[in-house]
């Protein structure tokens, strides 16, 4: 009746049966329109979802077909609500609908226009109103607007079913040679890399008895295997890697807090914080204490140790912030006092306790370092997956590139040689030198990375407790060196034998790259 306002007459001028009829028709039209809109929106959404799902077999889209479908269904719900709530038109428009659907032969709309003053009133105007009112009394709106299935419902249902089926079945399936396939391959490759990293992490955790890293390693391995075995889309892979990284970060923070509580992370005053390596300092301190403990053990019972030993103990005990952690310092001080009293056994006991404290801290730092390294590898994998197949593998960290020797297969034989990250070995010099197989440059492809072996701990070999041992920490970047093995031209048969040997023999991970580099340089000559 809103259309009638402002034109003189109001809704009250419209006879009650007509008003009632218009209200019912308005509601029926809105209901029918809402269903139509909902079905149409659903069909469009399902079609879009299907297209997205199909596109994902070819193009690396981060949009999921199910997400599109869910969004579309939400939009369909909104469309339904909008269809119900939005006005279907003014009263005259509704009257025209009523005439049309109820077969009233323009009685209602003419009567309403007469009331609204849109049509000139004639002597028959009153009769027209009466006629329309009488007709409105006897119409059956429910019969004129029966509940019906909106047109296109079957098509929409088929599209939704197809979209759901496609969204369930197709994700992860890619057409070979397409960008999507390359992304899937990359995810699997990163899964292999991570599995290798998890294996190394577990090995290190076992060797160095670092509990948090040992707990984290299976999780890393599990995620890595899932990335390889399941049909994982890029967003899913990134989500899993993100969760894993967060888990590693949490574990590392716990370890870090414990280290901070025990004062192992305070750098010495003369070392910048960014160059401070607590693990190296702890190693040095452990060596010093072991040396002192060995010398102390050589002192006969009841005698006072040599003056330089007492002085050294005193220096360690008096060291300021950034030197020995507080507990270890206290033990060393106790050892010094007991040594001064001639209680060599008590002093040795105190030194042993200090050593245990330091070794515990050493294990914690190793734990923290291992977790940090695993975290970096996970982040690097996630970054490469996010960047897509175009991301250069050279960007990975040197630690990630390190490859351990092939594991022993269950049958006792050595597993087949594997390349970096567990992949099949890349085409290398052993193929490039095969006679009749093309030039070396073609086979080699891009040059390999420079040799960047991890820094290894150095220990002084010899008999413990003999002579004065001075040890110190050299802080700074590692020096880059080149392989100095002389290059000698060898025959293809020799290269083949070398390859076969490399495949059989256990070559340390940090040497494998050097060997490979040797053969590559050899091939270039």
């Amino acid at each position: 009746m809103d259309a009638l306002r402002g034109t003189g007459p109001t809704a009250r001028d419209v006879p009650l049966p007509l008003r009632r009829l218009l209200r019912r028709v308005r509601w029926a039209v809105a209901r029918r329109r809402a269903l139509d809109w909902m079905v149409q929106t659903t069909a469009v959404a399902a079609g879009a979802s299907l297209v997205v799902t199909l596109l994902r077999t070819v193009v690396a889209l981060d949009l999921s077909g199910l997400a599109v479908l869910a969004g579309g269904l939400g939009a369909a719900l909104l469309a339904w609500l909008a269809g119900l709530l939005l006005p279907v038109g003014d009263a005259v428009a509704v009257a025209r609908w009523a005439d049309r659907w109820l077969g009233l032969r323009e009685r209602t709309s003419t009567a309403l226009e007469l009331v609204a003053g849109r049509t000139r009133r004639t002597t028959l105007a009153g009769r027209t109103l009466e006629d329309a009112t009488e007709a409105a009394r006897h119409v059956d709106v429910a019969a004129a607007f029966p509940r019906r299935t909106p047109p296109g419902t079957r098509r929409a249902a088929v599209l939704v079913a197809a979209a759901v089926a496609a969204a369930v079945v197709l994700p992860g399936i890619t057409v070979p040679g397409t960008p999507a396939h390359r992304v899937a391959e990359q995810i699997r490759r990163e899964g292999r890399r991570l599995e290798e990293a998890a294996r190394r992490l577990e090995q290190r955790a076992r060797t160095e008895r670092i509990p948090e890293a040992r707990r984290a390693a299976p999780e890393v391995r599990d995620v890595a295997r899932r990335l390889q075995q399941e049909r994982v889309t890029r967003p899913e892979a990134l989500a899993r890697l993100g969760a894993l990284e967060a888990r590693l970060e949490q574990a590392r923070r716990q370890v870090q807090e414990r280290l901070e509580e025990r004062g192992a992370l305070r750098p010495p005053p003369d070392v910048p914080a960014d160059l401070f390596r607590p693990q190296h300092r702890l190693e040095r301190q452990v060596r010093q204490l072991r040396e002192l403990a060995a010398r102390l053990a050589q002192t006969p019972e009841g005698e006072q140790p040599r003056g330089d030993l007492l002085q050294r103990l005193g220096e360690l005990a008096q060291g300021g912030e950034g030197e020995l952690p507080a507990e270890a310092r206290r033990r060393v001080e106790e050892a010094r006092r007991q040594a001064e009293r001639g209680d060599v056994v008590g002093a040795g006991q105190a030194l042993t306790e200090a050593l245990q404290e330091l070794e515990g801290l050493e294990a914690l730092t190793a734990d923290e370092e291992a977790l940090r390294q695993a975290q970096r590898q996970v982040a690097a994998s996630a970054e490469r997956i996010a960047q897509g197949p175009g991301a250069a593998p050279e960007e990975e960290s040197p630690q990630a590139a390190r490859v351990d020797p092939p594991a022993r297969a269950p049958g006792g034989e050595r597993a087949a040689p594997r390349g970096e990250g567990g992949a099949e070995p890349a085409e290398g010099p052993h193929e490039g030198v095969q006679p009749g197989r093309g030039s070396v440059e073609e086979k080699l492809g891009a040059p390999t990375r420079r040799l960047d072996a991890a820094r290894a701990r150095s220990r002084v070999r010899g008999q413990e407790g003999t002579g004065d041992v001075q040890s110190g920490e050299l802080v700074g970047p590692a020096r880059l060196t080149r392989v100095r093995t002389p290059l000698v031209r060898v025959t293809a048969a020799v290269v083949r034998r070398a390859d076969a040997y490399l495949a059989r023999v256990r070559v340390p991970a940090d040497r494998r790259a050097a060997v490979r580099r040797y053969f590559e340089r050899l091939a270039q000559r």
Partner: protein
Amino acid sequence: MTPETFLETFERLRREVQRVIVGHEALIEEVLIAMLAGGHVLLEGVPGLGKTLLVRTLAQTLDLRYSRIQFTPDLMPADIIGTNVVMQDAAGRRFFDFQRGPIFSQIVLADEINRATPKTQSALLEAMQEHAVTAAGVHYPLEEPFFVLATQNPIEMEGTYPLPEAQVDRFLFKLRVAFPTPRDLVTILDRTTGPAVPTPARVATAADVLAMQALAREVTVASHVKEYVARLVRATHPEADGAASMARRYLRYGASPRGAQALLLAGKVRALVHGRTNVAFEDLRALALPALRHRLILNFEGEAEGIDPDDVVRNVLEEVPELGARV
């Protein structure tokens, strides 16, 4: 007059005509509608279908003065309108006296109108449009109601003069008289070859007809119904926006505004005939063919392909939505 008496009178008229004319229910209704709308009718059909009988029967039922003009090639305008004749009174003085022609009737049957020359045909123009004639500078109004029913034979074209567009446009309806069905034909034989020929009774007067015409003009028309009429007529114009596809292809010119007037006025009468006081879309659809078919001018392609204007009107009805784009 009320709508009820209108309907009652109309039904009586129809019944009386149908006592004589067998079948042709739609034709009879359309002739009556045209008459009550104040328009003229062009009846087209082969000889012997009862066109003349229909007009004569109608005149008998209405108690109106009736005249029949048989159009021939040598018929002159003065033969229709009338002429000044030199007369002499009792004193021997001579004077001109206007002798009224057959047009001075209330129902005029212009039989085989296309046999007369255009000059003679056009003598009807003023009478049909103005309901008056002018002779020797003197204006003579015709007695109301004035109703021309013209007939023409669509087959026998030799020696005929097709009606000019301006003349055709003045007919409210052009009705096609179809051949009777076998059953109707049997009834015709029964009625016309027996001992007694039915004679219609007079059931309405001129005053009744005028009152009915006046009441028809009071019928209410909603704005969107009027818009529909306008869109229908506009869709017959090939150059107009919203022109129907057949109109674009086969028409040179569409219906005139007089066609829209004819359609709406006839629609009002039909609404009353069907017991309503408002015009519905169905009234317009039912009357679109007789009201528009003679107002469409085919182009060369239409003529060459033998397009029937009725097909164009049907195409217009199919392509023009009743409610337009607003609802």
